[in-house]
């Protein structure tokens, strides 16, 4: 086993190294084949330099604000009124930060790289896993195990080598947030948890960066542009921040992750692409550094909802402006860079933590191995309730298990024995036959076990009701390594 892992690790390293060399060779070839790119170009031109001056064609000096290759690369968007040469130059002089190199960050980064932003920074401390690939399209099967940041940069590099890429191989924290975010003009929140969403919003308020925020789960997505315009704390013309819209975090138990709830690739992809679109519109239209002398009107922001299964998949909702008593962006806010950077704001605490369920006594539980022995033994096997959702159960289950989804139990109003009969508790099962309960990782099964006892199904102790510790995950580890675990 160990030698196999070692060998695989060595091979992976070798592949990564070779890929880097290959990339380097391609870049050299590219530079050789397009000598015009090497011409020294004055990039410091202001947009007034874009005025063409015909009649100077005899000069060999390159006098256009973009390089030759860039005119062909960006030609299709250059001729749009939304972008134009002015917008393209703004893109080229803008630094965008993408926080999260996942399902949102991959498509967002790809389109921003393609569009030719000057600098693209990516923050993420995670590595690529196989379960990411169905939606995190910039990664690849051969890059499983690589830092997501490096994988995404490599993909974007292939797409557009003109962009300066800055990998930040760590998660955003209160301590590193100022150092990282201050180098950029615009931030995209492509993360997947409330803790990071509040942190990103706060640092964007303090550093006055507009923030394009999106999220997705199952078949739904949400998108909102915050801090736009990104005015100082208390400024009336500033756009609302994340805390203006969501002053209180949701209870930790109500937060569902993509791992638990599932997510469809194109749904999160749509949202990431829309983030890139909003960013391009903002940059090409001139954020902050726009030459405009007229202070921007506060934009009444809108929240865009996307529901893949709805008859009206897109819906735009008018949102509030800045909250006068907002913790972060109001005049009375006491939030400072110093306070944030010191780590005295505990975002994890603020958003709450889920504690593992622990409602059963040890003697009310059995291990997966013990249940395997019961199945193999001669005593009555009793009943096994698998309380995962049907989709999980349909993929793989323990032989003989009956699917009683937890959600149906939750939905069924007050607990009644009737709900479980006659299909689940047939008359042929003796009253003392034990009931076992299994779920995904061993939380829901405890609650159901407790509930079944409260319903009186244990016949005052005559019937044994227990849950399987660690759920199907434990079954996979202890009993059946082939079990596909979802």
């Amino acid at each position, binding site marked *: 086993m160990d030698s196999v892992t070692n060998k695989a690790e060595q091979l992976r390293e070798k592949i990564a190294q070779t890929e880097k060399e290959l990339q380097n060779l391609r870049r050299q070839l590219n530079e050789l084949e397009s000598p015009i790119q090497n011409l020294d170009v004055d990039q410091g031109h202001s947009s007034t330099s874009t005025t063409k001056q015909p009649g100077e064609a005899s000069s060999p000096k390159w006098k256009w604000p973009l390089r030759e290759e860039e005119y062909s690369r960006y030609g299709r968007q250059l001729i749009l009124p939304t972008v134009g040469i002015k917008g393209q130059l703004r893109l080229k002089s803008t630094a965008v930060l993408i926080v*999260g190199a*996942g*399902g*949102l*960050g991959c498509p967002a980064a790809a389109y921003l790289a393609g569009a030719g932003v000057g600098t693209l920074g990516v923050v993420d401390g995670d590595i690529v896993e196989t379960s990411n690939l169905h939606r995190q399209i910039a990664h690849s099967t051969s890059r499983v195990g690589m830092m997501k940041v490096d994988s995404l940069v490599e993909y974007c590099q292939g797409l557009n080598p003109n962009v300066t890429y800055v990998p930040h191989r760590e998660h955003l924290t209160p301590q590193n947030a100022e150092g990282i975010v201050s180098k950029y003009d615009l931030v995209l929140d*492509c*993360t*997947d*948890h*409330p803790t990071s*969403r509040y942190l990103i919003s706060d640092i964007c308020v303090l550093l006055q960066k507009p923030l394009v925020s*999106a*999220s*997705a*789960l*199952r078949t*739904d*997505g*949400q998108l909102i542009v915050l801090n736009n315009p990104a005015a100082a704390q208390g400024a009336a013309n500033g756009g609302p921040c994340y805390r203006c*819209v*969501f*002053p*209180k*975090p*949701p*209870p930790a138990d*109500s*937060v*569902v*992750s*993509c791992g638990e*709830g599932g*997510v469809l690739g194109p749904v*999160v992809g749509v*949202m990431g692409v829309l983030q890139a679109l909003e960013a391009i519109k903002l940059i090409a239209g001139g954020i902050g550094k726009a030459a405009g002398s007229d202070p921007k009107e506060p934009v009444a922001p809108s*929240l865009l*909802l996307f*529901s893949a299964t*709805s008859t009206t998949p897109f*819906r*735009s*909702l*008018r*949102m*509030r402006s800045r909250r006068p008593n907002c913790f972060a962006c109001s005049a009375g806010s006491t939030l400072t860079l110093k306070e944030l950077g010191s780590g005295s704001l505990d975002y994890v605490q603020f958003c709450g933590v889920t504690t593992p369920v622990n409602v059963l006594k040890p003697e009310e539980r059995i291990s997966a191995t013990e249940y395997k022995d019961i199945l193999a033994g001669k005593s009555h096997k009793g009943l096994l309730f698998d309380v995962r959702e049907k989709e999980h159960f349909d993929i793989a289950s323990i032989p003989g298990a009956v699917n009683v989804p937890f*959600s149906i139990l*939750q*939905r*069924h*109003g*007050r607990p009644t024995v009737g709900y479980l009969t006659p299909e689940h508790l047939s008359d042929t099962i003796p009253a003392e036959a034990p009931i076992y309960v299994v779920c995904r990782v061993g939380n829901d099964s405890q609650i159901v076990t407790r509930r079944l006892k409260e319903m009186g199904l244990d016949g005052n102790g005559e019937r044994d009701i227990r849950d399987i510790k660690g759920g199907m995950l434990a079954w996979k580890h202890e009993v059946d390594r082939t079990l596909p675990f979802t």
Partner: protein
Amino acid sequence: MSTIQAAEKPPEDIEIPKPELSIVVEFTGGLEMLFSDQRRHPLSIPVTNKEGNPLTIADLIEHLCNHTMKDTRKELFVLDDHLRPGILVLINDADWELEGEEAYEIQAGDNILFVSTLHGG
């Protein structure tokens, strides 16, 4: 026993049919799972609340908990008598904070949308 007797008591003011409002209530962002997996609920609701005042969003939330929600997990919709944090209310596609929040008086034909925030990415 007393609870059974209470349940058998005829509903109050049965003699006067209460005037009702037709509205549409919608749920998204996962909230629909608490409401029979149905996103759109055309509802007829009383014009006034128990005190005889025009029905507000606060009254509607209570009504939804008592009459529309079949799920036992009320705490995923209401916490401490208020909407759980992380749920937005949109009245005719506008943030309820533009309309007076819980005190907004519901009008016939209103579309009330409850959105749970998503965090995945």
